[in-house]
């Protein structure tokens, strides 16, 4: 209990520090007011007939410091109500997800320092916020290439290397030190990601590489392919990754039925989603959190985008494995907030 309170107070303290430290930043440009964003949600998960209830709060703070610096952080607080022999067990979780400083060195180079999301594949950096992801669950193979927790502690170089009308190429390369601190836990690792984007085809293809440099050294490799239609009514995302003990893939498609109305019409707010995924175990020297046996899973979802940045997520999944097949039902409602920390200057 004491450690939970400590974690919560650290999280709250860090977020408050980010805003309070800079409340003296009165000369900030009118549009550079620090912001608080994130989501508050309530989700349920029914796996094999057992239902868990999870209220979750995930705030994000971003603070520009002049023209070349910005500090940003995201945290997570959740309560977990899980079924027990009689009634429900209750547990807490509160932690910083990341806390990083960004230095915009040149048009093509940003230096990131601190605790950051590892840029391996696409899911960890882009789709983990609960207000963005189409499903509550991350893909089964997500931990491949993300070391122990998807977080690095050290430095990162990133930016667009080439940006042309017909194509662009961006990169991210990281080095992370080992840390056992409960809020900044990270493995010693290095790696990077490179992506080509073709605007006219709205196609992105990229590759990632990571090396774990502590304990048993391991290499991870991955690739991704994203595509969307011209008006972003349909999006296709996919990833494949391989480690020394397991590999897997996922692909996901979502769409908004433009043919039946505008985005703010009843039909236009509906968002059907589908994800297919498979994981394969090479051996049982498991250094990742993938299932212990080969597993296949199909996820069928139906999301509804309410006004005021509120989203309802529902899904049914069927998971197949030699250890047993299982049905997974999930529902949730997520509210996304986004506002300035203080009133700021008038333009």
């Amino acid at each position, binding site marked *: 209990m004491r450690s939970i309170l400590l974690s919560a107070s650290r999280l709250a303290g860090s977020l408050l520090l980010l805003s309070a430290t800079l409340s003296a930043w009165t000369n900030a*440009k009118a*549009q*550079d*007011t620090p*912001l608080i964003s994130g989501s*508050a949600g*309530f989700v349920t998960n029914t796996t094999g007939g057992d239902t868990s*209830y999870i*209220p979750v*709060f995930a705030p994000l703070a*971003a603070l*520009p410091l002049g023209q070349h610096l*910005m500090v*940003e952080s995201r945290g997570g607080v959740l*309560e977990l*109500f899980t079924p027990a022999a*009689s*009634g*429900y067990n209750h547990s807490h979780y509160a932690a910083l997800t990341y806390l990083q400083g*960004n230095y*915009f060195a040149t*048009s*093509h180079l*940003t230096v990131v320092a601190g605790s950051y999301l590892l840029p391996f594949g696409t899911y960890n950096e*882009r*789709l983990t916020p609960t*207000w*963005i992801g189409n499903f509550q669950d991350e893909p089964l193979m997500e931990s491949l290439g993300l070391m122990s927790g998807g977080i690095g502690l050290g430095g990162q170089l*990133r*930016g*667009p290397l080439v*940006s042309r009308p017909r194509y662009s190429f*961006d990169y991210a390369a990281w080095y992370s030190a080992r840390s056992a601190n409960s809020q900044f836990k990270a493995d010693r690792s290095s790696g990077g990601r490179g*992506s080509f*984007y073709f*605007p006219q085809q709205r196609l*992105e293809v990229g590759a990632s590489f990571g090396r774990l440099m502590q304990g048993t050294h391991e290499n991870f490799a991955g690739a991704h392919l*994203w595509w*969307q239609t*011209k*008006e*972003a*009514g349909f999006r296709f995302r996919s990833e494949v990754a391989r480690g020394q003990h397991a590999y897997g893939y996922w692909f996901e498609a979502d769409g*908004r039925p*433009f043919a039946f*109305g*505008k*985005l*703010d*019409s009843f039909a236009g707010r509906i968002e059907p989603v589908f994800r297919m995924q498979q994981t394969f175990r090479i051996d049982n020297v498991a250094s990742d959190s993938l299932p212990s046996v080969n597993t296949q899973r199909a996820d069928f979802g139906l999301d509804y985008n309410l006004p*005021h*940045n509120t989203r309802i997520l529902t899904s049914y999944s069927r998971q197949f494995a030699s250890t047993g097949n299982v049905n997974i039902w999930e529902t949730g409602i997520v*509210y*996304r*907030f*986004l*506002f*300035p920390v203080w*009133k700021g200057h008038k*333009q």
Partner: protein
Amino acid sequence: MRSSILALCAALGTVAAVAVPLMAVQDQPHPTVSVQSKGAPSGNSKSPEVKDEGERVFKQNCARCHNSPNGFSSRITGTIVRHMRVRANLSSHDEQALLKFFNQ
């Protein structure tokens, strides 16, 4: 059964306690930026044209990952764009174009 109902009520109460004040703060009358009214996917255009560089950047980078928010205060436009510069690996040229798009 009673404990599960209590757990559910506690959970809903927690969400409401967090969300309601936030909604109240967010609905304060700041000058707001509505991305959808600026040309983000609306679904009612049969031959969508990219009006400017900023709209192109928005459609190609922001909409690739997430739906556009309903609106936000114009006071944080620069901060949002800078956050996106890191997350989406935008160049400074694209960052300025996106900022201009939001300010139109």
